[in-house]
C-alpha cells in the first residue's frame, strides 16, 4: 500500500471502513497500481480477501506485493487470500471441459453469458466461517478487471448484475468491501463499457480515477488521480467531495502531489 494514498483517503489499515463499494477506473493510462495498493492494504488490514484476477498471473501480483510488503503466497496458504487466477483457469475450462460448474463457465457458452457461477465462487470464498471466532476483520472482494469480462462476451447488464449481487452479499450482509477496476475507453465509443462504468459510478461510495495528463507524456508526472467521495453516510446532504492529485510511480511507491507541484518542477 502507498502511505501517501492512505493519507489522501484518510484510512489506515487499523481502521477500515466497511460496507463500501470502491470503483477504480483508468483513462488513457494504466491504473493497475491502484489494484496493487488495495490488495496490499486489505491484506495488511487483516481482512479476508477474494481476488478475482482476470488479467495477469499470480506471480505478477506476488512480486509487486513483495515490493509493497505483503506476501501473497503466505496469505494464500493461511487462508487469508482466495485467488482466482483467470488466465490459468480459463485455459483449464476451455481445453478440458469440467463436469462441475466452474467460475469461468461463461467462456464455454455461446451468447451473453451468465456470471452466476462466478458469484457462487465469491460467495463460497468469503462466507463467514461458522466456527464463531472471527479470524479476519471483514471480507473484501477485489476484481481486476471488469472490462475484460465484456471482451469475453459477457453483456454489460450481466456484469452489473454480478456486481449488484456481490454488493448485496458482501457489502450489505457481511459488512465487507468490494473494489473493482474498470477501464474507461474514452473516445473509443465502447457503449457496453460506458454502460458499465456509469452504472458502477452511481453505485459506488468512492471513485478513484487515474487519468493520463491532458498535455501528453511527461517523465516526472505519470498522471492525475481524481478521488470522488459519494454517498456520504450523513443524511444531511453534503456535496460529494472531490480532490485531484498528480502522481509519479516509482519502484516501490507512488508519490502524490498537488497539481503543478511536482518536485521536478519546483
Amino acid at each position, binding site marked *: 500500500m502507498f502511505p501517501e494514498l492512505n493519507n489522501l483517503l484518510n484510512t489506515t489499515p487499523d481502521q477500515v471502513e466497511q460496507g463500501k463499494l470502491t470503483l477504480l477506473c483508468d483513462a488513457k493510462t*494504466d491504473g493497475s497500481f491502484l489494484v496493487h495498493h488495495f490488495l496490499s492494504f486489505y491484506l495488511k488490514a487483516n481482512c479476508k480477501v477474494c481476488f478475482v484476477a482476470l488479467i495477469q498471473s499470480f*506471480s505478477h501480483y506476488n512480486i*509487486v506485493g513483495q515490493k509493497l510488503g505483503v506476501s501473497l503466497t503466505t496469505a494464500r496458504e493461511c487462508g487469508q487470500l482466495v485467488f482466482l487466477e483467470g*488466465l490459468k483457469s480459463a485455459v483449464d475450462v476451455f481445453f478440458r471441459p469440467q463436469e462441475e460448474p466452474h467460475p469461468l463457465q461463461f467462456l464455454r457458452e455461446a*451468447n451473453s453469458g451468465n456470471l452466476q457461477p462466478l458469484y457462487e465462487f465469491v460467495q463460497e470464498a468469503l462466507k463467514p466461517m461458522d466456527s464463531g471466532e472471527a479470524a479476519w476483520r471483514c471480507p473484501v472482494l477485489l476484481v481486476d478487471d471488469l472490462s475484460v469480462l465484456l*471482451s*469475453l462476451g459477457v453483456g454489460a447488464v450481466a456484469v452489473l448484475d454480478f456486481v449488484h449481487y456481490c454488493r448485496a452479499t458482501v457489502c450489505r450482509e457481511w459488512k465487507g468491501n468490494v473494489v473493482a477496476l474498470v477501464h474507461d475507453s474514452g473516445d473509443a465509443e465502447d457503449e457496453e463499457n460506458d454502460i458499465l462504468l456509469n452504472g458502477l459510478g452511481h453505485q459506488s461510495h468512492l471513485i478513484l480515477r487515474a487519468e493520463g495528463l491532458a498535455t501528453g507524456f511527461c*517523465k516526472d508526472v505519470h498522471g492525475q488521480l481524481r478521488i470522488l467521495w459519494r454517498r456520504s453516510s450523513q443524511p444531511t446532504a453534503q456535496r460529494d467531495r472531490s480532490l485531484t492529485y498528480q502522481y509519479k510511480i516509482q519502484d*516501490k511507491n507512488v508519490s502524490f502531489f498537488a497539481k503543478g507541484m511536482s518536485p521536478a518542477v519546483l
Partner: protein
Amino acid sequence: MAAAATCSTGTRSTGSMVVAASRNNVTSFQRRGPRTSGTDSGCSRLVSISGTRPSVRNGQLLVSTGLPALDQLLGGGLAVGTVLLIEEDKYNIYSPLLFKYFLAEGIVTGHTLLVASAKEDPADILQELPAPLLDDNCKKECDEDICNHKTESNVKMKIAWRYQLLPKIEARPVSSSRFGHYYDVSKRIPQELIEASKWHGFFLPEKISSTLNEDPCSLNHGYIKLLQFIQNIIYKEGFDGSNPQKKQKNILRIGIQNLGSPLWGDDICWTENCDSNCSLTKFLYMLRGLLRTSLSACIITVPTHLIQNKAIIARVTNLSDTVVGLESFIGSEKETNPLYKDYHGLIHIRQIPQLNNLICDVSDVKDLAFKLKRKLFTIEGTWVQALVRNY
C-alpha cells in the same frame, strides 16, 4: 526464473476453490533473485536457453524481436510469455517484415517456431525469411553504414547545442550478438538453416473442415482450431513444464499473421455491428492464458486500420502486452513532407507491459520514424534529424 520443480505455485487446499492444474505450474514470471529459495540450480539452467537474456529491470526473461532497435525501445526485448501486437500499416508492406524478422531470429537462435497464417502456406513464409548477417562479415558491411551515419550526426550544433547531448537510439550491431541479429532483406535465408530448425505450421484452409462439429462457444471456428493447435504443441513438446525430463529448455516462438482479417472468418473488418464481436478478443485472452503458463513468445499482426468498430481496437490493445503501430508514408501526404524525407514511415510504441513491476520503462523519445535499408532497419527520433539538417 521458470524453474520447473521449484517455485511451484500450486494451490493448497485451504478452502480454495481454484481448479488446480494437476501438473506442476510453470510460469515465466518468477523473479530470479537470492531471496527465492531453491532456485539457484534452476536459474543456471534457465540462463542457458539460447537467445534469451534476463531483463535488467525486473529479471524477466527476454527474447529478441529480431530488430535490435525495436528491442531497445521495448526495454531490452520481448518478455517471454507475452504477446507483441503489430498494428499493420495501410498496404501491409512493413508489418510482414517485422513478422519475418521475428521468425528469422527464432531460426538463428534455435528456438522452435509455430507459424499460423490464413493467407500463405507457412512453408512459403519460411522460405522468404531474410538471411542473417553473421558476426564476421556483418561488422565490415555495417561499418560503412555507421560511418555515413556518424558524419551526419557529428555536425556540431551551434545554437541548439543542448539537443546534441540527448541520446540517440543505438542502431549499430553489438559485437557479442548472441541476442539480436541483423538481417539482409535482399537475400533469402539459407536452406540448411530452415532444415535444421524445428517448426510447426498452421495453414487455415488445410486445418478447417467444412462441418462444424465443435460445440459453439462464440469463438470463430478458425480461432478454436488455432488455439487447440497451439495448446497441443505446447503440451506435447513440454513448453509448459509438463515434461520435466527434457534436458534442454527452449522457447516457442509463435507468429500469427493477419489475425482478424476476413480470411480467418472474422467479420470485424467489414461491419461495425458484427455478431461475434468478441471472437477476436476471446481468442486473445485464451492465447494470453496459454502464453503465461509456458515458455513462449508470440507476435501477431492485426489490420487495425480495417477494423470498423473502435471499441474492438481498444479491447484488443488492452488484451495484448506490447503494442507497436506502423504507419508507412506510402500514399499519404507525409510522403512529400521534408521532415520525413529520409524515412519510410512512423513507428508508434502504443503500449509496453508493466510486468512484475509498478513502473514500466517508457522511452523518452516519442516521435519515432523508421527507415528500411538493405541491411538495417533503423528507428530514429525524427526531431534529431530535423535539427541536424537545419544547423
